[in-house]
């Protein structure tokens, strides 16, 4: 599980794990292995849910005509 994995990706993997377990076709060993994986995925998702990494940017056209993303000042909106 890489640090770069996206929440949605992890959630999809978790869903697949659950449906694999549901199928009842796994060996006991595999079932346990998948369950362990699932628990890790679930922990990862829960953690992701709680971390605030929201990044708001605004595109600005540079003098060269290129687009550049700059941090967007949300507070300026409130004022």
């Amino acid at each position: 599980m890489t640090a770069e994995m996206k929440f949605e990706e992890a959630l999809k993997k978790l869903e697949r794990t659950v449906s694999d377990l549901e199928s009842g076709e796994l060996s006991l060993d595999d079932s346990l292995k998948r369950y362990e994986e699932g628990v890790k995925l679930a922990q990862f998702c829960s953690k992701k849910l709680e971390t605030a990494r929201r990044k708001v940017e605004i595109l600005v056209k540079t003098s060269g005509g290129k687009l550049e993303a700059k941090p967007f000042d949300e507070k300026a909106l409130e004022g």
Partner: protein
Amino acid sequence: MPSVNPVETGRLIYSVTQITREIKVVLESAFPQVWVEGEVSNFKLHSSGHMYFALKDAESVLNCAFFRGSNQGVKFQIKDGLKVLCFGRIGFYNKTGQAQLYVEKAEPKGVGELQLAFEQLKERLQKEGLFDQAHKRPIPMLPSKIGIVTSPTGAVIRDILHILRRRFNDIGILIYPVKVQGEGAAGQISEAINDLNRIKDIDVLILARGGGSLEDLWAFNEEIVARAIYDSDLPVISAVGHEIDYTIADFVADLRAPTPSAAAEIVIARKEDLSGKLDSLIKDMRSFLDNAVSLYENRLAGILESRAFKYPLEMIERYEQEIDDLCRRGDSHFSHSVEIRMEKLNSLIGKLDALSPLAVLKRGYSITLHIPRGKVLSGAKGKTLRDVKGIKTGDIIETRLAGGRLTSEVKQVAKEEIE
């Protein structure tokens, strides 16, 4: 414009050019600004961008020219049968000798220009398939980065960001600032859509604008915006105006959100929803694992209960029994055959007994052997006599009886037939 003419006859004579020029002056100065109402017919759009058509009513026809420089601001589509109000000046075209209306402005009659333009574009794009459901892309459940095309100031972006704050946070927002109304707005919006399609990591676009009049929202009814949305590889959510406002962009977009805030709500799942989903997945996972474990437990129990497992020697015992059985059967077969043979042997011995010459002798018969001459004392075997033939007086014969033998000399030979 002097009238060049000889007056000697008292007649004022114009050349065609002269009189045409006169008419032109009179006519054009009389109608420099007029509104004319009529139905469009014989409409032609020249490749130069100039439009030519005639306005007609029940009785009359007036040719019209609507040059490119003037007709570019017309939002709706002029076409045959459409009732219009045209504003312009009357001109006289000397090449054809006809008066015509040089149109500077045109408006649809009875319905607002924008309304008509909207209906016309909607119909055209619909026919072309830009609204087709099949073309609509799915909106990602949990985008990691959202491109928002909107004005960077004002309530719309503030509302969107406010809603996002309460939602799933692991997300990037990229605002592409554009004019959302007025001159050049449509061009900026379509350019923004194109540009954002080339920026990495963006999963979905939101086009957002607050409520306003049809004029205010007009940029979102422009064909250029519709085409940019249609051509976008990224799914586009349109969130223009209030719930009751529909724009062309709404029809082309992959999803229409009733308001900008709603777009934010649609595109970013609520934290509670996500954690709820997560919880239920964890619960499912546990119960399925429990199922798997109990499934294997049951199988194991079944195996432990099986005869093979409970009575592991059973099979060996069975084989042993079978072997014993076979042995027993072999024995009896063997002894039986000996008995039969013994019986056979005894009966054969009996028969042999009966046939034995000794037995005959016991019954009082005797056997006579002819001993060849000179061999009597040598104990040589004689030849059993069945006839007197060949026996002479003086021959030695041996008689065997039950109890012994007699050696005699033949005294007399008498041939006698026995009946």
